[in-house]
């Protein structure tokens, strides 16, 4: 992984910033909500105390009835048309209560508007049995029909049943059965409507004709001879007390609580008997922050569904916190809307009087203030984070690019310096005060030392030969003088051997100083135009004379190869390569010399069969005093190829060596004139 990617990865750490911000927002939101809860709790407590003063307004608890025996009279917002349809009721279908019927669930609702009671019942009945005019709407009659009865009582005095049975769909008459007998009741309006799979009934009754206790009974029969089955909203013989909003408590609540607070007062069973105020419906944030809204929704603690905070459509508040309050404990709870993200804090407090729990006060408040506060913070956070992340990532990327470019430049420069042998050249970043600068300086010093060492090696041969020349002159001149002295045979032998040794030494010394002489020649060499092909051919003939135990082949496609340079030096180069080729090949081998055109100019090659070059010393092959030869000739000083490279470089060309099938090839690339 390169430096740029590494730093980019590091820049991802800035994403910690939004995380921390989100944590902060979440914490803030929770803290604010808790504060609001506490405040609401205190208010709810106070309200509960206030409500406790109106204890006579709360329905009396009657242990004879169960909660399910009671009917809730929903306060209607408008007067429904009695036409057998529920859709003009201001209630949702959630307000419909269910009873188990023979053919399917029976759904019904009881509403209250302007001292009038409205009844809606929908019955699943696969076989509706209508009555006829003669038939009496009686439980114990000889003829049975499908019918709906509203049981009303005012214990312990009255017990009446108002029965609805249809001769045909449409407006129907209803009958009132009391202790006084059965009579049709003209104040009641009812509409019977057939539906696929059953029927539905809507009825309007003056509240005055009904008692405090109400219940619903549905008779379903398949046959006039059969009494059928009875589905009832109450379990006992008589229905439980009906519950309705207390207008007095409602007025009190209205005085106490205004929007954006919502107050609900329940009785001891959780039935809603007063409600006031409303939660703010205002959407706290515009569409512009839609994204922020969604992010916010993901960020904050999810709560219970906000719909649960709404007043229960059945009329009875059944949320846990309300039940808990009815057990005597003030309990807070909170809800969150998925769409708007806003939270609703709710607190239920018990209303107690004389040690008895009369009911509960439910106080709710939206957290619009918190939301808008945190939303604003969130939007700012998102912006700042985005900018910061981009800034940091961009900066780091730029920095990484800059840094890696410096390092790459350094490495390229170092390699170039090594390749071009310009080891003293300044490397990039040498003046920088940082680690890259240090690296550059260390590189420079290593390269310089290497350069010094190379320079030392390069000059070693000529220095050595120079230094050795004087003592050698002493030896040879002494020997030459000695030859003029009278010597016996043995001494003559020794002197001759000493002369031979000194001669050999002289040749070695002169080979050692060859490189520096070639360098000198190169320094003031005047290029002359010549035909390399002609020169090579002529030289090749000389080689055939000198090296009688080798064959030479010449391969050249070019008619002539004009170039500019020093033919003498190039021949010297070829001498070195051929000498090398002869040394490494065996007797009778063919040394192939080639000349061809190349991209950059001309390429001269010398190929000889023989052992391959060792990989290990490939790069040093052309250095001074380096011999890759394995002990075949101990007099080899490793100067020949160095001289060859000097000459090639002096002509603006280069010298390469490669292993080929069964041998070695040396290639000299030369620029054309």
């Amino acid at each position: 992984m390169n430096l740029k990617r590494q730093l980019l990865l590091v820049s991802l750490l800035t994403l910690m910033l939004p995380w921390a911000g989100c944590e902060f927002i979440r914490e803030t939101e929770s803290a604010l909500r808790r504060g609001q809860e506490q405040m609401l709790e205190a208010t709810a407590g106070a309200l509960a105390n206030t409500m406790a003063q109106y204890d006579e307004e709360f329905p009396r608890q009657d242990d004879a009835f169960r909660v399910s025996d009671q009917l809730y009279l929903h306060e209607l917002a408008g007067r429904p048309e009695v036409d057998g349809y529920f859709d003009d009721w201001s209630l949702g279908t959630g307000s419909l209560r269910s009873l188990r019927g023979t053919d399917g669930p029976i759904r019904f609702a009881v509403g209250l508007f302007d001292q009038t009671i409205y009844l809606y019942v929908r019955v699943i009945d696969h076989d509706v049995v209508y009555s006829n005019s003669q038939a009496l709407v009686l439980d114990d009659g000889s003829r049975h029909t499908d019918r709906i009865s509203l049981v009303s009582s005012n214990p312990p005095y009255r017990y009446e049943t108002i029965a609805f049975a249809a001769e045909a769909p449409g407006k129907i008459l209803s009958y009132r059965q009391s202790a006084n007998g059965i009579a049709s009741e003209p104040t009641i309006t009812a509409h019977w409507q057939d539906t696929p799979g059953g029927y539905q009934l809507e009825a309007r009754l003056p509240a005055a004709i009904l008692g405090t206790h109400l219940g619903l009974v549905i008779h379903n029969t398949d046959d006039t001879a059969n009494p059928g089955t009875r589905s009832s909203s109450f379990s006992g013989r008589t229905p439980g007390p009906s519950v309705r909003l207390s207008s007095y408590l409602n007025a009190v609540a209205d005085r106490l609580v205004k929007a954006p607070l919502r107050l609900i007062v329940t009785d001891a069973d959780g039935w809603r008997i007063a409600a006031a105020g409303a939660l703010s419906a205002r959407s706290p944030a515009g569409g512009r922050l839609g994204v922020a809204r969604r992010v916010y929704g993901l960020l904050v603690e999810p709560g219970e569904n906000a719909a649960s905070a709404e007043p229960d459509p059945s009329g009875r508040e059944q949320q846990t916190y309300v039940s808990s309050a009815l057990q005597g404990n003030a309990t807070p709870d909170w809800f969150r809307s998925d769409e708007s993200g806003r939270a609703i804090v709710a607190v239920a407090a018990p209303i107690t009087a004389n040690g008895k729990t009369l009911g509960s006060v439910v106080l709710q408040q939206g957290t619009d203030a918190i939301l808008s506060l945190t939303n604003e913070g969130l939007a700012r956070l998102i912006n700042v984070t985005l900018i910061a992340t981009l800034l940091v990532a961009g900066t780091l990327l730029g920095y990484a690019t800059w840094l890696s470019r410096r390092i790459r430049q350094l490495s390229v420069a170092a390699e170039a310096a090594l390749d071009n042998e310009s080891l003293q050249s300044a490397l990039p970043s040498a003046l920088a005060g940082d680690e890259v600068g240090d690296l550059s300086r260390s590189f420079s010093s290593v390269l310089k030392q290497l350069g010094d060492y190379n320079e030392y090696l390069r000059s070693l041969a000529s220095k050595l030969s120079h230094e050795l020349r004087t003592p050698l002159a002493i030896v040879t001149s002494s020997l030459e003088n000695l030859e003029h002295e009278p010597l016996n045979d043995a001494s003559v032998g020794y002197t001759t051997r000493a002369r031979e040794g000194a001669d050999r030494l002289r040749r070695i010394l002169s080979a050692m100083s060859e490189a520096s002489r070639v360098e000198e020649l190169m320094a003031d060499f005047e290029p002359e135009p010549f035909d390399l092909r002609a020169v090579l051919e002529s030289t090749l003939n000389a080689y055939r004379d000198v090296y009688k135990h080798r064959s030479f082949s010449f391969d050249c496609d070019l008619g002539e190869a004009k170039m500019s340079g020093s033919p003498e030096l190039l021949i010297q180069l070829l001498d070195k390569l051929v000498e090398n080729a002869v040394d490494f090949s065996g007797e009778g081998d063919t040394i192939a010399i080639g000349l061809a055109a190349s991209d950059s100019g001309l390429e001269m090659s010398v190929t000889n069969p023989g052992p391959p070059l060792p990989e290990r010393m490939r790069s040093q092959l052309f250095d001074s005093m380096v011999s890759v030869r394995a002990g075949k000739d101990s007099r080899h000083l490793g100067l020949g190829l160095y001289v060859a490279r000097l000459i090639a470089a002096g002509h603006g060309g280069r010298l390469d060596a490669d292993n080929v099938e069964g041998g070695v090839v040396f290639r000299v690339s030369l620029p054309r004139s």
Partner: protein
Amino acid sequence: MTKRIAIVEDEAAIRDNYAAAFRREGYVVDAYEARAPALNAFESRLPDLVVIDINLKDDVEGGFELCRELRARAAELPIIFLTARDSEFDAVSGLRLGADDYLTKDISLPHLMARIAALFRRLDALQKPQAAESRITRGDLVIDTERMTIHWQEQPVGLTLTEFWLVHALARYPGHVKNRQQLMDAAQAVLDDNTITSHVKRIRRKFLGIDPSFDAIETVYGMGYRWLSD
């Protein structure tokens, strides 16, 4: 008359060896180890030939200085540099100062003796009238083997002893290729390829100085050189 050779050489062993060799040949030898004593002695009497080392103890360029002063004093005095310094630059510097030959200490005593003898012979020849039989003429080239002078298009070409012998060897049999070994033998020296190349280059340059269209010395690549006559 016995010739007197002065040798200025800081290396005692070499100095003594050369001195012994010169004496054996019948020369009178004065040996000096530094520039100052040599100059002092030359004040009173000039030798007939001087052999100088360039590097004289701490006096790194002492030989050059000495050569310059001697040449100022005696234009005809043969001066030979005999030194361990084999660089082209030093050789050119030495010859430019008016030395008659520049030799490295590689040279064998017999070769050195041959050169000294040749120089003395030339000195003698200059004092005699020019002898026709010692002249070789090859077109524009005239070689006087006695005086060891060469004229091209009747203008003298200032060649060193080595250069003279090289041209002489080449021009004697025009058209014949002389290989490096033959040239070395002719020049009474052991020279390597590069030195011969430099010598030939220098010879060509000297002829070109007189005649810009000079091309009588031809390189036969891989073989040697030959003299082209028209």
